[in-house]
């Protein structure tokens, strides 16, 4: 069984990459295969990368406030390409009242500032729909 594959994605114009890099490394240290998109990716880039890399998890990082625009587009794109079973996570600065709409759009979980990386690892291992636990 192959390890869980994760795409860590910086979507939109947001340039804060500290959290994305810490998460990428923590997931790698937990035995997952991690691909990091780099900064300033459009939703189309992210969708393409997720499909090309055949990942199990798309972990999007956004701190610019553009999450309600960017994240649903990525999910819609994944679904349109039969990749709707990928686990989509969001990390960053997301007001509480936006969490409901994001969950409805298909985000499995939203992780805010101060999250322990172990919590993200556990969540992925408990919820991933494809691949196998690391």
């Amino acid at each position, binding site marked *: 069984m192959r390890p869980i594959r994760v795409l860590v994605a910086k979507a939109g114009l947001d340039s804060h*990459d*500290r959290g994305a890099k810490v998460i990428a*490394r923590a997931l790698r240290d937990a035995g997952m295969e*991690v691909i990091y998109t780099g900064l300033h990716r459009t939703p189309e880039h992210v969708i393409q990368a997720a499909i090309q890399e055949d990942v199990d998890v798309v972990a999007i990082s956004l701190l610019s406030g553009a999450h309600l625009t960017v994240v649903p587009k990525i999910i819609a794109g994944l679904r349109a390409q039969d990749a709707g079973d990928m686990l989509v996570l969001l990390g960053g600065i997301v007001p*509480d009242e936006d969490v409901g709409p994001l969950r409805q759009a298909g985000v499995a979980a939203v992780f805010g500032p101060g999250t322990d990386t172990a919590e993200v690892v556990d969540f992925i291992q408990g919820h991933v729909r494809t691949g196998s636990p690391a």
Partner: protein
Amino acid sequence: MAQKPAAEAAERAPEFRTLSGRPVKRIYGPEDLAGLDPARDLGDPGEYPYTRGPYDTMYRGRLWTMRQFAGFGTAAETNARFKYLLEQGQTGLSVAFDYPRLLGLDSDHPRAEGEVGKMGVAIDTLDDMQRLFDGIPLDKVSTSMTINSGAIVMLCMYLAVAERQGVTWDKVSGTIQNDILKEYTAQKTYIFPPRPSMRLITDMFAFCSEHAPRWNSVSISGYHIREAGATAGQELAFTLADGFAYVEAGHAAGLPYEAFVPRLSFFFDVHMDFFEEIAKLRAARRIWARRLRERYGIEDERSLRLRFHAQTAGCSLTAQQPMVNIVRTAIEALAGVLGGCQSLHTNSFDEALALPSTEAVRIALRTQQVIAEETGVTNTVDPMAGSYYLEALTADLEREAEAYFDKIEAIGGVIPAIEAGFFQREIADASYQYQQRLQHGELAVVGVNKYTLDQKEPVEILRVDPEVERSQVQRVQAHRAGRDQAATDAALVAVGRAAEGSANLMPPILAALKAGATFGEVCDRMRAVYGEYVEPIIF
């Protein structure tokens, strides 16, 4: 002073370390000052090597400038926030631009969707910029503008607005961040590759030294390096290394040092480790003065005197129990003041959740006012000098920075080190180590890994109305429809030609903006010539 063996008195931990991981002894004494020569290493305030402060009277003469970074929504909304802050006793302005601006795009660019006016103010045209400063005479306030890759265009907009207000350029004062080097390593709002970006900066040095002599043409920023996860020592070393790179670039472009070095200013983070932060700020002044004199033979005291803006650490703010952030910010601000800042931004308690609300900004400003007017710390200059611990820390940070300068030099300088991913790797490592220490409980963050609450405190947050984006898109499109297209096109062609050649870019950019070109269009012309930077993937 003999130290007692550790076994005699039990301590809370086997070892004590600063926030940046520096070991700390139980006690510091005269032996820690053995290598310190006060005349050589400290000097008096206002005297070489400026360890004790850039000016002789410091806050007895003039308090620091209270400068709260602000910007959101449209120019009119931010203008209202500026006026509110000035009414509340703020003494300088600081503009935050939104992401489309930081990346050189107009509001109606497809990549700008969802980002217009979110993290800062949306400015597409000269008319927008004029609205931003409506009723604020630009010869009466100093303005700081946080923008880097598109800085040359935004500075031209500012100068053009001053002109429209009837203010001559010799009277405008302020700072443009314009520190592109740290964009590649930390803040990451780059557009063009490093080498052409440096040319834009030396063009600005030359133009400002001739036409806007009171303008600080770069704010060499450690803030973002630290926020990206660097340690205090890395922040110090990488920022000063960037500073020396600008000194060398200006000189290589044929400018005499005295024409631009006095207008270089700095911007540091002030994090939670109180003494380490004060030491970092004192060490910065000493290193800058010493290296400028010893390496470059600069003697002009306006150049040797490092001046800096400080901001309390955004990354120390917590989303959990956010009111506690007021306390953190107050302690950090005090360290900034004891470190001798020339201007200060205090973060608002709600900034780990959203852009600050008016109430949160007022409390942040009041925090500075309390330090300035109630605590008495401003009554004497550099009250920390001579502290065994603090002077030892200052010297240690200086040594750490010197060791980094050697490493950077061995790679071939700052730009080759960026291209090799050196800084990016150092910062990613430090940030991961910090996270590990936090998660192992070695570092405490109240409300996050200690003293947590099950229930969230409700906080009213500021939200930017999506209507802002729609109206801004309409405004820029109406502007394009109403301008003299032939004149705009001709002026933009001239920008492209100047970018390809070596003539100073500021005059054609000013002409293009006045002809009606938008911010994004001018950036596009430069993009067409210089290309876009793609960073190495490092984590």
